């Protein structure tokens, strides 16, 4: 079956979200840094909601160990995550403007690579890399909103995962303490809860709702 036109898909979103919110979502630009359990799920939620521009970034390739929680398929093993997720996002939201980069973000390339985004999502897995991105964005890119994730490993309760507003433009989702380095694995359902917090925080910022 032929896919619906851009207008048809936009109208369907408008009916569900309202014209004003859909206009805001369509004109928003979001960068998702890290496309693992958090980032792949966040990007899909944002694409489904009709965010107009997505920039997806990861240096890594799809591995069999990712399949318990990350939005990839067995036949995509070995592909760069940015390429594999691009294909999925394009199927979900064919008219979304998606930019993909297979690159390792660091202090030298973050300010230029992320300059177009209104909202930056930190979805890395390593704690020192999370801190690096957050410090770099907050120090060098004062106009950006930043939504970070920290603490979602293991099978702890759902309700210990929350969203905190640390500063005017800086939010953190997670329980803040469950560290994958403590030996607790990452479980799809709990990672999804944190990804849901992050994606929803992005959508609320786009809507102009800044309280938590």
């Amino acid at each position, binding site marked *: 079956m032929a896919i619906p036109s851009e207008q048809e898909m936009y109208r369907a979103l408008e009916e569900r979200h309202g014209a004003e919110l859909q206009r805001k979502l369509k004109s928003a630009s979001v960068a998702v840094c*890290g496309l*693992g*359990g*958090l*980032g792949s799920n966040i990007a899909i939620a944002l694409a489904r909601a009709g965010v107009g521009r997505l920039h997806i970034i990861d240096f890594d390739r799809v591995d069999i160990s990712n399949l318990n929680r990350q939005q990839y398929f067995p036949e995509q093993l070995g592909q760069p995550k940015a390429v594999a997720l691009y294909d999925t996002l394009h199927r979900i939201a064919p008219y979304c403007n998606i930019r993909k980069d297979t690159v390792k973000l660091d202090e030298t390339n973050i300010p230029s690579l992320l300059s177009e985004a209104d909202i930056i999502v930190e*979805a*890395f*897995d*390593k*704690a*020192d890399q*999370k*801190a690096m991105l*957050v*410090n770099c964005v*907050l*120090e060098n890119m004062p106009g950006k909103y930043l939504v*970070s*994730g*920290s*603490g*979602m*490993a293991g099978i702890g309760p759902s309700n210990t995962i929350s969203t905190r507003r*640390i*500063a*005017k433009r*800086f939010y*953190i989702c*997670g329980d*803040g*303490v*469950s*560290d*994958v*380095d403590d030996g607790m694995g*990452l479980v799809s359902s709990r*990672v999804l809860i944190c990804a849901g917090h992050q994606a929803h925080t992005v959508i609320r910022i786009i809507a102009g709702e800044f309280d938590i």
Partner: protein
Amino acid sequence: MVKINGELLEKDGKTVAEMLADMDISGQRVAVEINEEIVPKARYDETILKDGDSVEVVRFVGGG
């Protein structure tokens, strides 16, 4: 007194680096804000906490 992550502590006059050392925290995995302004990592040694400051120390943990 300085409010650190919501708790009032006598850290006036200490630097951010000293505060982190007191808390036994490595500087590689944190972000520090004073009164909602980020403290650049390069200034942890020279930034001094003042009476009435509100400090947020964000410790990142792994997983994603």
